[in-house]
């Protein structure tokens, strides 16, 4: 009996180890598969043009050089100006930071109202707002261009910020509303009885427990807005373009030879901020902050 169960146990653990190993092997292979393009980008960006011409795509750089990065940042030609992508990078910052913060904050306030201060017709209003998540952005390009023109924000950074805030609201409101419905109504009721009003409850009770959803929302919005190409290319021009549009123009500027190393460096620079947001904000992605407020 003892022997039997022992051999059974062995059998089981051998199968388990085999299974585990198989899973790890598959995971490692897929990870490498997806990392290779990134590695090629990094290697290429660190090579000189000679190196690129003589070597092959996946070979290591013979000599590490940051010239391509420097050139991509402040001297490569985009269209007729040759000042690199730095100006456009800052444009993207100036667009993304306020657009993310404002749309997230308004989303939080909207979510608070739609979950905790329901009024006659609030459900209908919320459903209509949700439609915003499903509207393809191409549809609204023309009317939006006309509207921006009317209010005098055409081709400006402020105009782009406004567009991103408006089209982010559907998502941010949805995020916060769905988060706040899970917070017990009794918490709000307790605060009401403690004498707190609409804003005091929002700032003192709801916002402090909202960190997880803030992080989700900020990651989502930053990625959306920083990576946006369509609005950037349509609603801005020249000086005010975001980095995504500039990157496209840099790669497509056809004077002289194609500088792959500069293209790659510029592409990595353009992708860095979203990467940074994932790495930094991910740490604060705390769960269970509301644990213990309510029994059960």
């Amino acid at each position, binding site marked *: 009996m003892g022997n039997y169960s022992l051999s059974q146990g062995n059998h089981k653990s051998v199968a388990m180890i085999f299974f585990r190993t198989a899973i790890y092997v598959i995971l490692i292979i897929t990870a490498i598969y997806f990392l290779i393009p990134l590695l090629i980008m990094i290697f290429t960006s660190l090579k000189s043009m000679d190196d690129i011409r003589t070597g092959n795509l996946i070979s290591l750089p013979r000599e590490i050089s940051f010239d391509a990065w420097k050139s991509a940042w402040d001297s490569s030609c985009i269209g007729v100006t040759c000042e690199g992508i730095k100006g456009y990078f800052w444009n993207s910052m100036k667009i993304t930071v306020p657009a993310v913060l404002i749309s997230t904050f308004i989303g939080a306030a909207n979510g608070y109202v739609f979950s905790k201060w329901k009024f006659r017709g609030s459900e209908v209003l919320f459903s209509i707002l949700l439609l915003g998540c499903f509207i393809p952005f191409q549809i609204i390009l023309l009317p939006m261009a006309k509207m921006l023109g009317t209010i005098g924000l055409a081709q400006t950074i402020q105009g782009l910020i406004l567009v991103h805030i408006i089209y982010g609201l559907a998502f941010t409101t949805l995020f916060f509303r769905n988060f706040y419905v899970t917070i017990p109504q009794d918490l709000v*009721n*307790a605060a009401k009885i403690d004498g707190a009003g609409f804003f005091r409850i929002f700032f*003192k009770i709801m916002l402090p427990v909202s960190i997880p959803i803030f992080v989700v929302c900020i990651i989502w919005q930053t990625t959306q807005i920083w990576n946006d190409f369509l609005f950037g290319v349509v609603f801005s021009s020249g000086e005010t373009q975001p980095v995504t549009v500039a990157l496209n123009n840099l790669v497509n500027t056809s004077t002289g030879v194609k500088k792959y190393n500069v293209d790659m460096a510029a592409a990595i620079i353009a992708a860095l901020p979203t990467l940074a947001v994932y790495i930094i904000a991910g740490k604060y992605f705390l769960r269970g902050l509301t644990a213990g407020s309510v029994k059960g």
Partner: protein
Amino acid sequence: MASLTIENVKKQFGTVEVLKDISIDIAHGEFLVLVGPSGCGKSTLLNLIAGLETISSGTIKIGDRDVTSIAPKDRDIAMVFQSYALYPNMNVRKNISFGLETRKIPKPQIEQQVTKVAAMLQIESLLDRKPAQLSGGQRQRVAMGRALARDPSIFLFDEPLSNLDAKLRVEMRAEIKMLHQKVGTTIVYVTHDQIEAMTLADRIAIMKDGVLEQFGMPREIYNNPASMFVAGFIGSPSMNFISGEIIEHDGELQFPLDAQNGERCHMPLKDLCVNPHTLAKRTVVLGIRPEQISAFSSTDQGNSSVYKLTCPVQITEPTGPDTLVFVQINNQKTTCRIHPDKAVLPGESMALGFDLSKAILFDPKTEKRIH
């Protein structure tokens, strides 16, 4: 401190009527317990008193002030929630002081108040902890502390003990009673536990399906229940309901008790209700509490309200102070509360004394009391 007057209050959620014409009136300093089975509308009524739900019709007065359409914060109430609802992001000290800060009370006074409440509830050592780091009983105290820190006209408690274990519940029950005696503030307390209701209340309001079944003092409700629902709800083990058909015997109307072993006894109806003749040939329900059926003894011999019937015992359940003995009367299971020394073994027969002085009659159709 203030009285509370609830007049013809109704509450609808959509088309569903959750509270049907509730009227309750208590004097200041009284302890009112709202009791009833789950879903009968206790929390809803409490929320109406607090102003957290809007009233469909009727009025609520606190003291002389009509608060029917006044915001919760202006009603001068404090509430302990069924779920405690402690603010998760604040420590215990902050949880208690939040309401005082909101009301712009000066800092030193707030500190003094928090210290006082913490001492009263013995939670001084917990003041810097977050709610997540507290046990159920400790959270319960903090929730209570948050209410006590203020000095409201009325305290509202929504099943504050329902999630505690049995021992802690008994302790906290006693503490709440002491607290009420100390602070003397009017309290409305919701529970579905009839023992809590009986032990704490000055007045009990028993509700069922949104209807106020009976409102009165605990003894009054225990001794003179208005319906079978109230009689069965209050008291443990609950009242025996024995139905039987009224017969004419020895020239008077009588209620028969049949032990199913050839033994019978007959109780004169005139001792059970005011107008016996209206009940001729009808089936009625006799309500008699287990403690009114005991071992028949020689001292009962001369007592005209005690009737003797010898019944075969089916099951016994010793509880310690008493033994519950189950017998069949009129073919219905009947519980008797017997002194442990007097109880016999299952299968044996036992002489039981039925004390009619507190037995009552119910109409089986309406389930209301027949006076």
